[in-house]
């Protein structure tokens, strides 16, 4: 690929009315890199991801994907969104469609794939992530973990260059979290470029190349996980990690 970073965020500001949620985010993610965003609720992790995916318009700043400035005027927003996959905390599967159709809808309509092509690829993906028997089921018959895995597959079916995961295990019961983390781990091992907002510190320490701590809309500290988790520089980071350990999540 080109020498450009997979993702570059320059001075990103985001305001909702009077409240400023993101205050000047600067972030660079190289190809094949896995970056984990950690921080308290309301620190801006979700908003940042939604801005990258252009779901939220930015108030100021620039975002570039592989050198192309996606926040510029006149950009085909739909095309950009096809290249960036995002998975949400609340799965957001389409309840009126089977698992298979959930996965093949966008490839068929947005990428123009034929039904046969899309079905074959979807089945392969679903099989790979252990969902082969659920192909003709409706989402209401799946467990939370299965639904989230389908949501990930649905995003993968578009063959994105970059994946954004927004606290994808936060809504799941503990015993279902593991199966979803496995999927993400596999994606990371296969070299998918990912930005993951998460509360799962143990998981972050395992797979992240870099961890960013967000506080009140700015990246307070970032670095390799071993350093951040054992020797954070900032007081606030320390406090945050203390709370996490006390809550038994590490």
């Amino acid at each position, binding site marked *: 690929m080109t020498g450009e970073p997979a993702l570059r965020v320059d001075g990103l500001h985001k305001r909702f009315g009077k409240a400023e949620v993101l205050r000047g985010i600067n972030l660079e993610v190289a190809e094949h890199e896995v970056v984990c965003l950690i921080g308290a609720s309301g620190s801006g992790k979700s908003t940042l991801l939604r801005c990258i995916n252009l779901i939220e318009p930015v108030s100021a700043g620039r975002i570039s994907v592989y050198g192309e400035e996606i926040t510029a005027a006149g950009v085909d927003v739909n095309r950009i*969104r*096809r290249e960036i996959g995002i998975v949400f905390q*609340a799965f957001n599967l389409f309840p009126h469609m089977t698992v298979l159709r959930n996965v093949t809808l966008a490839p068929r309509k*947005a990428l123009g794939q034929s039904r046969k092509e899309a079905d074959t690829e979807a089945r392969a993906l679903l099989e790979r992530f252990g*969902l082969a028997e659920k192909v003709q089921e409706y989402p209401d018959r*799946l467990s939370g*973990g299965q*639904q989230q895995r389908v949501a990930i597959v649905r995003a993968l079916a578009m063959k994105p260059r970059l994946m954004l995961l927004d606290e994808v295990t936060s809504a799941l019961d503990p015993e279902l979290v593991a199966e979803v983390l496995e999927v993400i781990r596999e994606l990371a091992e296969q070299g998918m470029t990912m930005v993951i907002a998460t509360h799962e510190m143990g998981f972050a320490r395992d797979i992240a190349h870099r961890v960013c701590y967000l506080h009140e809309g700015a990246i307070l500290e970032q670095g390799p996980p071993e350093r951040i988790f054992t020797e954070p520089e900032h007081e606030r980071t320390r406090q945050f990690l203390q709370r996490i350990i006390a809550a038994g999540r590490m």
Partner: protein
Amino acid sequence: MSYGGSPENLNPTGLPEPAPSRGPSLLGSGGATFRNVAIALLSTVVVFGLVAVLIVESAGWPVVREAFFNRSYFRTSISPIAHAFVLNIKLFCICEVAILILALLLAVIRSLPGAVFFPLRLMAIVYTDLFRGVPTILVVLLLGFGAPSLDLTDVPTSAVFWAGTALVLVYTAYVSEVYRAGIESVHPSQEAAARSLGLSRTQTLRYVIIPQAVRRVIPPLLNDFIGLQKDTALVSVLGAVDALQQANILSAADFNFTPYVVAAVFFIAITIPLARFTDYLVLRERRRRQAGGVA
């Protein structure tokens, strides 16, 4: 770690439990136990038995029975009213299709975003207010007698055509509001999910939002259908001989009101199955809606 997936019988946690049916069961709490069924049957017999006795013993009952439930007039009315009822059915089917399509169009127009579409949205609002505000029978009369008088070329003058047009205009206004409520009830996260996959606004509307919206508003939609089925009787004010008018004719000929009861039976025969079908669809959709992780 295996990907065998959770065992089938593990309750999907992290999701709200799908409620079997939100209201009390028809038989009472606990459902169809032997005790419940026995009590239900007994009280049915008692209640309906009492009502029947009260009616039959009332002073005017023989007269009412003779005038409204006369057996021989009942028998002789069935055939002519059945033939006339075909007109109601034809009108219903054709209008129904037109209404479903036009109302959806109107609802989509009403929800178009952006300042550039303001005039379209305004027209949609004016249309809806106008045709919901005027009584349906007035619209039928105005169009039925007014439009043919305009002597427009190539436009049919038949009563059935204009009655049908009036019904379509009026019901499109009501049904478009129902659709709109449905569209707005679909959680915005569904649109977010679809758009984030790269689907355009039109594709999102067509494949994700509208299918869900329609399924959600099936009860009020079917309510309107049932209303339409009955309002086809309004074609009689323009002189067309539908089931109601045929009942009028028979009734005036024999000075007996039984034909009206026969006409009523025909209407009910259509609307009751429609109502039960609605119930089934609602139950099925409610179950599905619980999943997908949407609030």
